[in-house]
């Protein structure tokens, strides 16, 4: 008996040994240059929005790679292959919808991340390079998503391609060169080239920039990751993305609106003023406004209310983004007017509103900071009391959640077996969300 025990122990020891052996070797790799911090408390997700953005990037990478198995980057193949993925390939519609909604989510998270970091003044503590690469990464994310939906070659895609081409041509000096490179000799070259950009070149550049953007300490919260991806799956199941009409050169007029994240640009172009100024110069200036924040905001204070300039940029940025995005969606519904009349935006009204927004934001920020300086600083908010539930209750809830998760996973598998992808995907998402809550529950118990 004693011998047996010894044997078993040595076997366990061997596993532990080889684990330590591996870790020691891994320490010599770049992986251990990054410190992953798994929070041991329930913390607000605001602190790791960047990590969530990156997780979404990974989801996009995986689903995108799978779509590459079927997508054909050619004039004749593009739309039909997307249609095939959608209608014929098992789980094709699931992969495509997740890829589409993940692109929206990534842009949303990146923008949210930017404004959170701006208002919490994180760029102050020697984070200038992280800030600048972040703004570049955000811009690349939007361009990458824009190229992605061009690849479908439906009417909406060609509208976007055409606007993109016109803007590129209108840019002095480098514009025509870039347009020649991207368009090649026509549509067939164009699709293959933007495809290469979408699946290889842009992601590569982004990954390289990640090394200049990621801080050494990364917060990784499995609970929140589960909840976000779960929510993404449920959204993908509930709102499948339509295929749109196939582009053929003789199609009659259709009023289409681009994806929401390029709506501000669309609204600017619809004022029908100079294309280059509207479509290239002003958006670049808008992005530059964020880029220079760490360099023009020299105040020592970390409190946003004491830094009117950064506060003004933040507020004006949020308001201008929202107003131009919504405006881009609005099309005069009057059917008697021509297509062009319906789309036109009155430049005086449009820029009047934008200028007003800037005056209100910067003026308001200045007045607010002046006023709030006079008032004594409010006492620091005391830490909110931890939820007053007994450990046993939480433990009970965790057990219940684990059982529910197993049940939901079962339902999900059964639904896939039946071929009901929508309910299957909803259940998959639900199980991931429950997993997230289980992780939080366990954390609540262990930190008591």
């Amino acid at each position, binding site marked *: 008996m004693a011998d047996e025990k010894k044997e078993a122990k040595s076997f366990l020891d061997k596993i532990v040994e080889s684990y330590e052996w591996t870790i020691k070797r891994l320490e010599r790799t770049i992986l251990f240059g990054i410190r992953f911090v798994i929070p041991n408390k329930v913390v607000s997700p605001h602190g790791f929005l960047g990590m969530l953005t990156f997780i979404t990037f990974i989801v996009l990478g995986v689903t995108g790679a799978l779509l590459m198995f079927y997508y054909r980057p050619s004039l004749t193949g593009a739309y039909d292959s997307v249609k095939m993925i959608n209608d014929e390939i098992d789980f094709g519609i699931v992969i495509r919808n997740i890829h589409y909604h993940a692109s929206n989510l990534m842009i949303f998270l990146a923008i949210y991340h930017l404004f959170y970091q701006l208002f919490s003044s994180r760029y102050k503590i020697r984070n200038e390079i992280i800030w600048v690469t972040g703004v570049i990464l955000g811009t690349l994310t939007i361009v990458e998503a824009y190229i992605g939906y061009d690849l479908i070659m439906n009417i909406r895609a060609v509208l976007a391609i055409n606007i993109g081409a016109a803007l590129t041509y209108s840019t002095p000096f480098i514009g025509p060169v870039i347009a020649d490179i991207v368009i090649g000799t026509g549509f067939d070259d164009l699709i293959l080239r933007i495809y290469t950009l979408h699946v290889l070149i842009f992601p590569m550049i982004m990954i390289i920039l990640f090394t200049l953007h990621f801080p050494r300490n990364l917060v990784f919260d499995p609970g929140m990751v589960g909840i976000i991806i779960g929510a993404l799956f449920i959204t993908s199941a509930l709102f499948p993305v339509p295929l749109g009409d196939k582009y053929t050169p003789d199609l009659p007029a259709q009023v289409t609106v681009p994806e929401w994240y390029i709506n501000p640009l669309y609204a600017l172009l619809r004022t029908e003023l100079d294309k280059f100024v509207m479509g290239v110069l002003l958006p670049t200036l808008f992005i530059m406004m964020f880029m220079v924040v760490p360099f023009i905001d020299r105040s020592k204070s970390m409190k946003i209310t004491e830094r009117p300039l950064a506060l003004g940029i933040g507020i004006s940025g949020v308001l201008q983004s929202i107003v131009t995005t919504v405006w881009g969606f609005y099309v005069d519904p009057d059917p008697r007017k021509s*297509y062009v009349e319906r789309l036109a935006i009155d430049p005086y009204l449009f820029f009047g509103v934008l200028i007003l927004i800037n005056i209100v934001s910067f003026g308001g920020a200045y007045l607010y900071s002046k006023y709030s300086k006079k008032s004594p600083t409010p006492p620091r908010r005391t830490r909110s009391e931890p939820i007053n539930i007994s450990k046993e209750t939480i433990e009970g809830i965790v057990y219940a959640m684990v059982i529910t998760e197993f049940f939901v996973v079962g339902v999900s598998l059964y639904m896939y077996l039946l071929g009901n992808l929508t309910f299957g995907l909803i259940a998959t998402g639900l199980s991931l969300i429950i997993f997230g809550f289980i992780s939080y529950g366990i954390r609540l118990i262990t930190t008591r």
Partner: protein
Amino acid sequence: MVDRRTVLKSLFVASGIAALAPFFPLGKFLTPEAQASYPRQKVGNINDIPILGQLFVTYPKTGDPAKDNDPFRQFLIIRTGENEVKAYSRVCIHLWCLVDYQKDKDLIECPCHGSQYRKEDGYAVAGPAAKQPNRYLPILKVEIDSNGDIYAIGIEGEIGYGR
């Protein structure tokens, strides 16, 4: 009194930059259009087109349907006189629908949003195309030989953008 180290360092930098120069011509790899061969290709015969009639042609023709169906290779030839034609790209400079010549209106028209172009020079006179920075349709350069055969020899302007 420049010291030797500085001279050597600047020489090092200069030679590094010089070594990059040969890579610029390689950029041609990226722009097939810049060196595209626009071969002299027969696209039709003028005697097959009635006066003020039109002919749709593909140029440069490759024989590969995937390429030949490309809107960027679609052109329109209008016979304007006994021995005279006008030839333009069919890609509307507004949103890339394909235009054609309407004999009754004596204008080249786009079916999508109603842009109209003059047949004489391809200038956009109405519709959204008239608001573009470049208002002329790109031209297909043609030659007509003594038999009336029309040969395309090149393109003038940026297709989809104008000239």
